[in-house]
């Protein structure tokens, strides 16, 4: 059988079966239709803006979690790293009134935790679960100790304004998130390192046998995940107005849920940033819609749990093609 070169075709073969790998698209379409029918507020500009803004933090962190999942690991610390970076950046900005310093601080804190994870998991070979569980505790402690448990005041006005600015109808912080998405899509699809991430996740042993420096790849994903956690922490200040030490606590489940629902496999080697965007969008639309029709937050938790379970099961059953 000869192999076809289909570079000239517009639609690559297997498009429809590929669509099966993106169940999120269908669900989102469904939700959009359902909610806009039920609630008149749903498609109002203000609502859409609020929805986008609130989920920018999640999106940035979810990109980091996607990278980690792609190598078959997990980063439980990302949520509290968000908190810790926010708090420390908030304190720095309150003292110096410099947004630039704030960003740099947040990134540095995030990267710091990320590198810690990276060294322990990538170089030392510890299990991701227990390691990031421990760093999660540490980061949480840091966030609360430095803030004494209360919101950090003194955010520079410019940053507060940034939280309200919209460009072309889309909040500025969402543009930041989209920029991050674009950056990491490029990183994963067009660079050698990105390719190595996918291969390591697909088969760690084979990657090693092919000459790929697995420990470097793993160090990198955790470091980047931390870095993105730091950025997300900074963005949360813009979004909420203050640095809140508990900001990340409830986010872990949402972040993991978004990545998993998007279709990235927790075992590694399968998934993409694009899918995570869909996952974030799905959860965003879902919760926004449920809010509008008056479903209380605790019932939303139930929906979230069911969705994560069903979504993962669907992805497992239909995602990988059977041999």
């Amino acid at each position, binding site marked *: *059988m*000869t*192999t*076809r*070169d*289909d*570079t000239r075709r517009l639609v*690559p*073969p*297997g498009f429809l079966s590929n669509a099966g790998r993106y169940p999120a698209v269908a669900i989102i379409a469904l939700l959009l239709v359902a909610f806009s029918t039920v609630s008149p507020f749903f498609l109002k500009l203000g609502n859409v803006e609020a929805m986008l803004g609130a989920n920018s933090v999640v999106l940035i962190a979810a990109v980091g979690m996607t990278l980690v999942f792609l190598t078959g690991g997990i980063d439980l610390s990302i949520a509290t790293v968000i908190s810790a970076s926010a708090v420390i950046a908030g304190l720095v900005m309150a003292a110096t009134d410099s947004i630039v310093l704030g960003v740099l601080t947040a990134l540095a804190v995030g990267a710091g935790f990320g590198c810690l994870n990276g060294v322990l998991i990538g170089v030392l070979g510890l299990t991701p679960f227990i390691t990031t569980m421990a760093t999660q505790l540490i980061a949480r402690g840091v966030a609360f100790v430095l803030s004494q448990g209360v919101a950090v005041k003194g955010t520079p006005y410019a940053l507060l304004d940034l939280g309200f600015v919209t460009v072309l109808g889309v909040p500025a912080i969402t543009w930041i998130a989209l920029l991050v998405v674009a950056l990491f899509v*490029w990183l994963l*699809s*067009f*660079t*050698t390192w990105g*390719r*190595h991430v*996918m*291969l390591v996740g*697909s*088969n760690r*042993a*084979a*990657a*090693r*046998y*092919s*000459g*790929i*420096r697995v420990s470097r790849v793993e160090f990198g994903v955790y470091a980047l995940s931390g870095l993105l956690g730091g950025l997300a922490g900074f963005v949360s200040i813009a979004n909420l107005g203050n640095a809140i030490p508990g900001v990340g606590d409830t986010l872990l489940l949402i972040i993991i849920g978004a990545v998993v629902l998007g279709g990235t496999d927790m075992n590694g*080697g*399968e998934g993409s940033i694009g899918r995570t965007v869909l996952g974030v969008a799905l959860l965003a639309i879902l919760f926004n819609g449920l809010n509008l029709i008056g479903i209380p937050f605790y019932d939303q938790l139930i929906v979230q749990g069911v969705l994560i379970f069903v979504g993962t099961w669907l992805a497992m059953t239909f995602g*990988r*093609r059977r*041999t």
Partner: protein
Amino acid sequence: MTAVFSVRGLTKQFAGKRVVDGLDFDVRAGEIVALVGENGAGKSTTKNMLCGLLEPSAGQVLVDGVAVQRIQPQAHGVAAVHQELSLFPSLSVTENLCIQALPGHAARIDWAAAERTACEQLEFLGIEIDPFAIVESLGAGQQQIVEIAKALLSADRLLILDEPTTSLTAPEREKLFEIMQRLKARGVAMIFISHFMDEIYRVSDSFVCLRDGHQVGTGSLAGVARGELEHLMVGRSIDETHRELAAPTDDEAIRLDSLDSDDFAQVSLRVARGEILGIAGLMGAGRTELAEAIFGLRPCRGTVSVGGEPVVPLNVATMMSRGVCYLPEDRRTHGLFLNRPVRENLSAAGILRFVRRWLPGFGFRGERVEALRIVERLAISVPHVESRVADLSGGNQQKVLLGRWLATEPRACLLDEPTKGVDIGAKFDIHTRIVELARAGTAVIVVSSDLPELLGIAHRIAVMRKGRIVGEFARADFDSVNIISLATGAAP
């Protein structure tokens, strides 16, 4: 003596392919039957049907003359010792031995009774292993013995042993044979699967020989010369795999000086450019460990030199930079990225070549074109280079793996079982590529359990046994009987 276990027309099919076809033999009480054949001949499948792990697709399994749908191990008194041990590493020997039949009633295990059973069993078998030792702290040989002891506890009537001696020391092997004789006296039937001719002739009464899923011989071992049996196993004429080889050059490509590690000792070899060196030997001889050590995947003492220059430090990166490549034995766990497309699998070892020189980070120019080119050259049958490798047949998967490494234009290749689990057509193609490689000046080391393969394509064959090189043969002196003898350890 009436037969205890019989098979008539035993057949097993997997996805349309007949792995075992029409077997017909008996195993009588107190009889030891040797099940022989090459890798892939169908021994494992036959064993699995006889111990109840698989159901036959066609034909019958009879116990005491009565046909059964599927062997029930506990009920029929059948136990098997598989190649992959079925132990619980973090549990003690006693727990492992007794776990399938724990004494005591529902709410309380009678550990005293279990310990007694375990101690008695170990004593009866004359094994000196601490019954309270945790299994994972035992050596491989001792673990194998524990597995055997466990099987013996429940095997009243039929005991199946699949390569039981691979990890045993000489005294342990003696013990095993002694135990087998005692079982024989007790009337237990046994099926003994082994590659070691010595052992087969030592303990077995009769044999069943399989080749490509068919039964090619059966009967008493008395009067069957070893050469005859070996011929039955190997079967096809050497000519089928025989190739015309170009003469190798004199330039040294790879040299091993006294390589030493936990799995092999004092290995010294040389391979010239354009030469194909085959490494023959049995499983457990340390060949794969040697190949992995050469490539830098395992630590070892000694020196590996490429092109006359010692490789220091010895790791995968430096070996790859010297133009050496390694095709692992187990392509699924160590070689392929099963859920990734063919294109990515092909470029995995050399993705850097496709990075645009002046614009790094802008994709991989020519990767797809190169993938198509390799697919064409190696005649890999795949609908699209974006197809997932998991969907390919074994032969095509192996070609993808080969293609990945050939794309790096290596100066030297280490191939570990390059045609394992590969169909005839793909096997032919792969052999052609290997010979072409050598002709073009690449040095090739082929580790293989398929002796006709080595006889057909190698310039020289080195034989490994128990971690040592025990002989070398030049092409002109190739002699399969001698090689097998050296590999299994008989007198030359």
